[in-house]
């Protein structure tokens, strides 16, 4: 069932004044064909986690422990973290593709959109004849809603939304099983964002890939994802189905996030927000990293770090949930 299993993954940024634990002991499963939302504030480690899974981290970042096991559709499991150069090249794009936040920077400005898709096909499917590659390029562009004649256009000639579509087309080129989308719609307007989200869902239906969707916008995740994992200060603090998290969040941080978004419809509920500021990863609070900002914090919270334990629905890492059941 799982296409990707992350176990106890830790990533440090090594600096002069000691290591910064950007991702700490994260375990997550990505099921085949699901959209897994990864939410958190800036500095919570969500992008670092995604980059670690795609093996895109560069020094000073270093993976200090854990495993990332990929279960292929046909064939046995492989540990992504142990892949060699050559295997890694085959793994990326064919099994796992990434769509970055800023498509302006992700696309090559001096090469046409068509050439960039062609490039992926040429490298990863060297046996494909040129004519077939062109056909595939046209098909991919049309599939994401770009007219075929635009393949001769350069990235700067496309609008922000079109560029993001082009980046998705490139990711789809080899029909990967996993696509990591790192804030794919953050730079776009809401109307265009809505269209892209719709597109992602339709494409998922058609091709059956699994998506790790990273964003800080929890209300957007609630709509698009099947399951959601919430990160805080490098750790996963809660996971669960989007519906369950929306209906009854178990972690105070999730609750705070949910009640930070002004709503468009219904009664004007009072917004709670979260007091304080996100923690400095160089000097994390003791115990539960969220306790200085938590409204429900008890004395024990500053002494003992809660483990991520199975809750009523999904998992939660909060002392209030350890033995008393779900927090309300």
């Amino acid at each position, binding site marked *: 069932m799982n296409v990707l299993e992350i176990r106890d993954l830790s990533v440090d940024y090594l600096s002069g004044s000691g290591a910064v634990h950007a991702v700490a002991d994260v375990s997550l499963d990505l099921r085949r064909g699901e959209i897994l939302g990864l939410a958190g504030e800036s500095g919570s480690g969500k992008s670092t986690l995604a980059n670690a899974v795609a093996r895109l981290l560069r020094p000073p970042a270093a993976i200090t422990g854990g495993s990332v096991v990929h279960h292929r559709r046909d064939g046995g499991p492989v540990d992504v973290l142990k892949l060699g150069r050559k295997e890694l090249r085959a793994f990326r794009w064919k099994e796992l593709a990434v769509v970055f936040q800023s498509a302006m920077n992700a696309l090559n400005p001096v090469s046409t959109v068509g050439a960039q898709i062609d490039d992926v096909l040429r490298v990863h499917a060297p046996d494909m004849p040129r004519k077939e590659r062109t056909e595939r390029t046209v098909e991919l562009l049309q599939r994401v809603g770009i007219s075929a004649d635009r393949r001769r256009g350069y990235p700067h000639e496309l609008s922000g939304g079109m560029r993001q579509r082009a980046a998705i087309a490139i990711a789809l080129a080899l029909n990967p099983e996993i696509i990591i989308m790192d804030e794919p719609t953050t730079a776009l*307007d809401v109307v265009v964002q809505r269209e892209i989200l719709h597109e992602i869902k339709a494409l998922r239906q058609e091709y059956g890939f699994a998506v790790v969707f990273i964003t*800080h916008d929890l209300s957007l995740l609630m709509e698009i994802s099947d399951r959601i994992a919430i990160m805080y200060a490098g750790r996963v603090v809660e996971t669960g189905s989007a519906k369950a998290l929306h209906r009854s969040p178990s972690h105070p941080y999730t609750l705070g996030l949910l009640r*930070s978004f*002004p709503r468009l419809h219904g009664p004007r509920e009072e*917004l709670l927000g979260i007091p304080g500021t*996100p923690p400095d990863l160089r000097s994390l609070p003791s115990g539960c990293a969220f306790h200085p900002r938590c409204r429900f914090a008890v004395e024990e919270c500053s002494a003992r770090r809660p483990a991520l334990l199975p809750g009523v629905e999904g998992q939660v890492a909060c002392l209030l949930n350890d033995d008393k059941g779900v927090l309300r």
Partner: protein
Amino acid sequence: MSDFVLEGRDLTKHFTAARGGRWGRRPPVRAVDDVSLGLRAGTVTALVGESGCGKSTVARLLAQVYPATSGEVLLHGEPVKAHRGAAFRAYRRQVQLIFQDPFASLNPFHRVRYHLARPLRIHGHVRSDADEQEQVAELLERVSLTPVEQFMDKMPHELSGGQRQRVAIARALAVQPVALIADEPVSMLDVSIRLGVLRLLEKLADESGLALLYITHDIASARYFAQDITVMYAGRLIESGEAEALTQSPAHPYTRLLLESAPDPDRVTAPETVRLGEPPSLIDPPSGCRFHPRCPLVMPVCSERVPERTSLGEGRWTHCWAAAHPS
């Protein structure tokens, strides 16, 4: 209407495009056309629109950063033209701006104290060093950066995004302005921080009687923090009204589209998505109503003539042919 503190009347701004015209001609970019907007004391007014719709240009026109191509800006009912020199400084004493990026709007080489003391000195609000110290402390207090002594001597890089934005707000307040223009003040901040900054702005408008213009792309936050909302599309205003009424029963099809597109976890089923294309180029905007190429209610007249303002009662109005001639 004379109760406006700051008002823009029929503001139009055309920029000269760097290139793009035929035969080397440089066509105008019609960034803002016929925008009229008024700010009242103690009231938060929101200007909502997608990126590139001209909302920041409106902010800069109101702040006299550059002159309007046509139309006028009125402060307390008096037309002002103050783009340089003493007149500009006098105007800046009344109208202040806050920008989106708190990382770029503070000088990284100077301490918080310097950022706040400078406007106080330039605009002659302090008499002595002790007085300056006191006023800086009071400003920090007002934006809830306490303990004051601790924040006064911090450098910008020692502050978080939300704290920096508070310093920027304190700096704007230093000159005791009557109007404050906040251009996307929270869009670069973390979700959990946004609320605090918005509440602060709301409190300042309420307690100090500031006229506040809140420019944003997030219509849901406008619903919560503004009394009035004006929606802008491709350089023109298209709808305005009381915040709750406008968000709950939008009159213009673009406002409806904007509301439907905003993420909303409470929604039972995802809204119907039709591919509508993207906002038009402002070098060659569509004729008539600028929304007509994307509009689901489009009629022949829409591409021929610009819709006039249709009043809907209770201070609400829209520019839409469908609202002008309900069938």
